């Protein structure tokens, strides 16, 4: 029998929850650069190190490009490393995102999601993290500060698993989560957390006792095989993420499935989203249900690898699936990244719901329960009239209306 874990209930925003998770995970090296709305993650970790609560090296890098580069170096040398960023910082890292995964380094990074310049905006949407889609990072979207704390711990377990060895990104809404406080249970004593994610010494690192060459040049006769290993690692990650969720739930009592549903069993219309607005969506579902609408909600927690089995399982009985995305793939007919992903899944299904792609909350344009209700009503009407739009709906733009 494992000893029972004692928790301390603290009022934390997601940024501070992440910092606590980093401390409790006994990270060895942190390299990060401040950017709103991520900054307080780095500030809090600095405090922990300054007070001796976390024994780690903090590298005060001169840019995000260097932040991730330093993480690559530190991880390659065998350390457990962490960084955090948002928007412009993530874009500046972009080149190194691909190298971190290509070198198979288990780096963990959190993103307090933020809209991309120009125009410059410090407010939330998911265009930053969506731009990193193809960088071969395991990517999770979380919806509460508690989930952020727990997910960072899980992220180390997933990243360092010998069948995975890929970096992991945990993203949550800038401001909406990074700056709002919730009660969060953090471990009274980090020991059980550290036992859950023991420091493994079984991967290849830069060690003078066993010299290796990392990051060589691969000619056309080898490059593809090396990249294919990443394809397989992602497939393994799909399994390992779920195993980790189970193990975490068993040990700590909190479970976050890769796809979560709410009042969906008998629903005809499902609305799928991710991040903090899943909370708003659930409220909206309750309101609509009270008015007799047969609606339910779906939350996507895992983005890469894409949990296609669970998504299909959740949506196959629906008449209409509305996918509410918070990023735009400019020039695409279906411009919501998750909507596009799901539509490609459904191509192989004979029984499939209609799909409606909606973009909402760009640059933190407010999304209320009312918005979801109106979107659902429009969807129901269009479904009835058999005219679900074949292209993305841009909800909430001044002067753009749909009927």
């Amino acid at each position, binding site marked *: 029998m494992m000893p029972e874990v004692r928790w301390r209930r603290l009022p934390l925003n997601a940024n501070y929850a992440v910092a606590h998770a980093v401390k409790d995970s006994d990270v060895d090296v942190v390299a990060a650069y401040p950017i709103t709305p991520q900054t307080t993650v780095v500030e809090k970790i600095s405090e922990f190190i300054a007070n001796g609560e976390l024994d780690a090296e903090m590298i*005060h890098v001169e840019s995000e490009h260097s932040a991730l*580069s330093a993480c690559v*170096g530190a991880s390659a*040398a*065998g350390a457990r*490393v962490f960084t955090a960023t948002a928007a412009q910082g993530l874009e500046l890292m972009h080149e190194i995102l691909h190298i971190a995964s290509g070198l198979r380094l288990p780096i963990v990074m959190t993103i307090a999601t933020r809209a991309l310049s120009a125009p410059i905006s410090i407010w939330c949407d998911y265009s930053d993290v969506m731009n990193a889609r193809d960088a071969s990072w395991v990517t999770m979207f979380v919806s509460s500060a508690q989930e952020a704390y727990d997910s960072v711990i899980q992220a180390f377990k997933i990243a360092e698993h010998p069948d995975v060895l890929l970096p992991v990104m945990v993203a949550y809404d800038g401001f909406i989560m990074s700056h709002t406080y919730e009660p969060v249970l953090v471990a009274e004593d980090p020991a059980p957390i550290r036992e859950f994610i023991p420091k493994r010494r079984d991967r290849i690192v830069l060690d003078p006792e066993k010299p290796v060459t*990392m990051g*060589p040049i691969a000619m056309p006769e080898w490059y593809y095989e090396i990249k294919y290993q990443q394809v397989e690692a992602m497939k393994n990650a799909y399994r390992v993420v779920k195993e980790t969720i189970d193990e975490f739930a068993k040990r700590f009592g909190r479970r976050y499935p890769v796809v979560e549903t709410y009042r969906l069993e008998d629903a005809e219309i499902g609305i799928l989203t991710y991040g903090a607005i899943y909370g708003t969506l659930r409220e909206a579902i309750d309101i609509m249900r009270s008015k007799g609408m047969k609606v339910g909600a779906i939350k996507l927690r895992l983005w890469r690898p894409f949990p296609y089995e669970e998504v299909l399982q959740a949506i196959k009985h629906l008449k209409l699936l509305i996918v509410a995305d918070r990023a735009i793939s400019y020039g695409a007919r279906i411009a919501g990244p998750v909507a596009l992903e799901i539509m490609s899944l459904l191509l192989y299904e004979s029984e499939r719901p209609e799909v409606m792609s909606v973009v909402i909350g760009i640059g933190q344009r407010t999304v209320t329960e009312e918005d979801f209700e109106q979107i659902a009503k429009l969807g129901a009407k269009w479904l009835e009239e058999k005219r679900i739009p074949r292209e993305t709906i841009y909800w909430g733009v001044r002067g753009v209306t749909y009927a």
Partner: protein
Amino acid sequence: MPERYYKSLRDLPKEEYLASGHRLCAGCAAGTIIRHLLKVAGPNTIVVTATGCLEVATTPYPLTAWRVPWIHVAFENAASVASGVEAAIKALQRKGLIDPSKRINIIAIGGDGGTYDIGFQALSGMLERGHKVMYLLYDNEAYMNTGIQRSGGTPQFAWTTTTPAGRVWKGKHQPKKPISDIVAAHRIPYVATANPAYVLDMVNKFRRALEVEGPSFVHVIQPCPTGWRFDPSKSIEIAKLATETGMWINWELDHGEFRVTVPVPKRKHVKHYIRAQGRFRHLTDEDIEKIQEYINKEVERINKLVGKEVIGPLAE
């Protein structure tokens, strides 16, 4: 006098940590420089190399010429990666996760492009933060790996593929950026310039750079037969001419103390260096005089710094 760890080349270890069979061009002085660096550093070393000729030529997967742990990440970030390696070793040693008693050399290597230009910010950051990393700049004065394009380290009037000599242009317009002076302005413990034609001076500087506490920087001139356009058998001869003409002065700044480590009592005219290389072929005698004037001033500045005439007057 500089620290004399090695009195003769026979004092250097016999072991080779850069294997033969790498793909550097015949006569490439980069091989000479790195081979000696690794002899000095020994096996307890981790090397980070920026993208460039050295990286590409030594690691064609699945082969490698490196007998010490080595990593390449990108073009502009060798200093940041090395910062991370150093921090990791520090943290892991402190936590007892790796042997705390072992002293591990951490070396970052960049070409002129990876140092003067695209990697400059990362380098400055690493120096300012004080990581105990030795940074080696091998300076072949252009982006050789991508086919001889101009860099901030290309000397004035040199032909490159992006500063061609034509009816209007005479090669590169601007003189070399004084990178080592800029590095020295970071007030790190040790900065030196070196030349593979003066091997003993070079290896002693490598040793010193690895020994000081905190960041160190060694800037080595690296003749490149392919880009500078000369016969591969002449690399060391050309390197020697660079110092004999005052085009390249070997100095060190050790904890604020400045010395010229290879005095040149009688200086040769720069034309001996210039005329030996195809990259300067388009220059007239008048153009070469302009280079001579520039070098005269530079020599004067150095002599003033030292307080005596360490680099002598023009003799031939």
